[in-house]
C-alpha cells in the first residue's frame, strides 16, 4: 500500500501544482482543504477509504494522460468492494434503454426515489454519467465509479452520511473547473431568467437579491446585466451563492447565480 500511497500524494501534488498556476481565489480556497486531506492521509495513513477514493478520482480525471492509469484503476477495482462495504446492492443496467434510443434519466430517478438509506444503487452504463453524478451529489448522494472492463462503467450511489466533508471538497473542485457553459447546461431546465439592463442602479441588485431568495437548491438564476455588478458580489457571498459570468460585449454581461454547493 505504501507504494500506492506515495503515488497518490504525487498525483494530488501534481494536480495542485497544475491548479496553482490558475490565479483563482475559489480554487485556492478549495485546494487548501484538499491538501489537508492528502496530508492527513500521509501523516496518519488512517482514512484509507478516502485515499482510495481519491486515487480512483485521479484515475478518471487523468484519463488518457497518465501511463499508470490502468494501474490505478485496477487497484480501485480490487479494493473497492472491501472498503466501501456494500450491502443491499440494487443494480440497474441502463444500456438496453440507451440502445433502444430512450433517455434512462427518468428510470434512474425513479430508482433513486425508492432507494432506502442503507441501500446502494449500481448503474451499469457504457460511459460515466457525469450530469447524473452531479445531480445526485447535489442531493446529498455520494458516488463512485468502477470500470470492470473496457466499455462498461459501474457507477454507485449511496445516501451520504459520514463522508460529507470529504464530498464537499471534491464537489467544489469539480465545480470550479467547470465553465459558464457547462454550468448553464447542467441547470438547463431549472433556470430562471431576468434582464436587468434597463433598470436604474441599484434596482438590478435589488431584483437579483429578491429573485435568489426564492431560488431552489437545484435552480439557477440567469441574469442579463450591463456589467459585472461589483457591489452585488459580496452580498452573494454572504448569502452563500456562487456566481459565474460571461462578457458578451461591453454593454452586455450574462451572469449565472446558484446556491453554493459548498455548504
Amino acid at each position: 500500500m505504501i507504494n500506492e500511497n506515495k503515488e497518490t500524494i504525487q498525483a494530488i501534488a501534481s494536480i495542485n501544482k497544475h491548479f496553482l498556476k490558475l490565479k483563482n481565489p475559489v480554487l485556492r480556497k478549495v485546494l487548501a482543504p484538499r491538501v489537508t486531506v492528502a496530508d492527513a492521509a500521509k501523516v496518519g495513513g488512517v482514512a484509507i477509504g478516502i485515499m482510495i477514493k481519491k486515487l480512483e478520482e485521479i484515475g478518471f480525471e487523468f484519463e488518457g494522460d497518465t501511463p499508470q492509469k490502468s494501474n490505478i484503476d485496477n487497484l480501485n477495482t480490487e479494493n473497492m468492494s472491501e472498503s466501501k462495504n456494500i450491502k443491499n446492492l440494487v443494480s440497474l443496467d441502463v444500456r438496453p434503454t440507451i440502445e433502444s434510443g430512450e433517455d434512462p434519466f427518468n428510470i434512474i430517478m425513479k430508482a433513486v426515489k425508492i432507494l432506502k438509506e442503507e441501500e446502494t444503487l449500481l448503474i451499469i452504463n457504457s460511459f460515466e454519467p457525469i450530469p447524473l453524478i452531479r445531480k445526485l451529489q447535489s442531493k446529498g448522494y455520494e458516488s463512485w465509479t468502477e470500470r470492470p472492463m473496457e466499455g462498461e462503467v459501474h457507477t454507485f450511489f449511496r445516501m451520504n452520511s459520514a463522508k460529507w466533508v470529504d464530498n464537499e471538497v471534491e464537489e467544489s473542485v469539480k465545480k470550479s473547473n467547470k465553465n459558464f457553459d457547462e454550468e448553464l447546461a447542467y441547470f438547463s431546465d431549472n433556470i430562471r431568467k431576468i434582464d436587468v439592463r434597463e433598470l436604474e442602479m441599484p434596482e438590478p441588485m435589488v431584483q437579483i437579491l429578491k429573485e435568489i431568495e426564492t431560488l431552489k437548491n437545484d435552480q439557477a438564476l440567469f441574469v442579463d446585466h450591463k456589467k459585472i455588478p461589483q457591489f452585488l458580489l459580496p452580498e452573494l457571498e454572504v448569502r452563500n451563492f456562487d456566481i459565474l459570468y460571461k462578457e458578451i460585449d461591453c454593454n452586455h454581461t450574462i451572469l449565472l447565480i446558484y446556491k453554493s454547493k459548498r455548504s
Partner: protein
Amino acid sequence: MSVLNSNNAPDVSVVKPHFVFGSIALFILSVMIILADTNLLEAYFNTKILAITHMAVLGWASMIVFGALYQLIPVVFETSLYSEKLAKFTFWMFGISILFLTYTFWVGAFSSLLIYSSLLTFSALLLFVINIILSYRNSKKKNISSKFVITAIFWLAATEVIGTLIAFNFKFNFLSEIHLHYLKIHATIGLIGWFLLLIIGVGSTLIPMFLVSHQLNENKLKNAYAFINVGLIALSLNWFFINYALINPLFWLAIAIGVLLFFSFVFDAYKKRIRKKLDIGMKHTMISILSVFLPISTSLVVMMGFGMEEKLLIRVITLYGFTMIFGFITTLILGQTYKTLPFVIWLDKYKGLVGKAKTPMPRELYSENIAKGQFYLYLIFIVCMISGLIFNNIWMIRIGSYTLLAVSILYNINVFKIVFHTVKTIKNED
C-alpha cells in the same frame, strides 16, 4: 474561467467622512464668499480669492471627488482600493492641510506659513496619488474611462508640484518667471488636467449608467483623450520653456475640441437614454455638462483679450475660474452627491435586508423637496455671480453669496439626513 473577486467595495468608513467634510467645506466656502465681498471684484490673485479658490477646489470639490473615487474604483478599475488605511490617514492629513492652507491664504501669510501649509497639502495629495496608482496597477480593466482617471491623477501630481514651487518662490524667489505666470500654469493644469479629465473619466462611466443608455460611441472618448492631453501638454510646455503666445490658440482649440467630443458623447447618452425622466441628481449633472460652454468661451476671451480694458479683463479671468469651478465642477458634484452618497449609505445599511424585506430605495434617504429647492437656488446663484462679475455690480454678488449660503445649508441638511439615516423596513408581504 470567470471567477470574481467578490469584495472590491471599500468600507463605508472610508467614503463617508469625505462627504461630511466636503459638505461642511461648502458651507465654510459660502461664508468666505460673503466675507470676501468687494474683494471678489478685484484682481484674481488677491488673498481672499486665493483662499476661496483653494477651499473650493480642495476642501469641497477634491474632498468629495476622493470619497466618490474610492467608492467607484471597483466600478472604473474593477479592482479594490490599494489601501483603506492609507485612505483614512490621507483623509485626516488632507483635511487638516486644507484648513491650514486656506487660513494661510486668507491672512496672506505668504512668506511665513505658506511653505509649511503647502508642503503638508503636497504630502497629503501625494499619498492619495500613490494609493490610486497602486490600485490601478492591480486593475484588470484598462479601458478609456480608467485611462482618463489615471491620467487625471498624474495631472494632479503635476499641479501639486507647481503649486508647491510657487509657495517656495514666495520664500526663496528662485524661479525665473514671476509667480503669476506659474499660477496660470498651476490653475490650468489643475482645472483641466485634474478636474476635467477626472470628470470625463468618471462621467463617461456613470452618466450612461444612470441614464441607462446603451451602445455609445467610445471613439469620441478616445479622441477626446488625445485632443485634451496633447493640447494641455503642448500648452504647458510652451508656457514653461518657450512662452510664445501666438500659438496658444491652437492648443486652446485642441482642448476645446476634446471637451466638445465628450459633450457629444454625453449628448448621445442623453438621447439614447431609457429612463426618460431625470431625477434631481441627473438634472444637476446635465446642467453641469451643458455649462461647459461657459469656461470654453470665457477662456477664449481671456486668451485673446479682444482689446478689453485691464479692469474688465481681470474680472473675466475671475469669471473663467468661477464658471469652471462653480458652473461646471460644483454643479456636477452637487448632483452626483445625490447619486452616490445615498447609494453608499443604503448599501451599508440595507445590504443584509435586500430581497428579504421591503427596503427603501437610495433616493428615499434624502428629501426630494430640499434637493429641488437647492437646485433652483443654485441656478439663481450662478446667474447672480456671472452678471455681478461682468457688470461689476456688488449687489448682484451679494445676493449671489447669500443664495449660495442657503444652497449650502440645504445641501448640508440632506447630506446629514443621508449619513445619519436609520434603518426602516416593512416586512415583505409577498
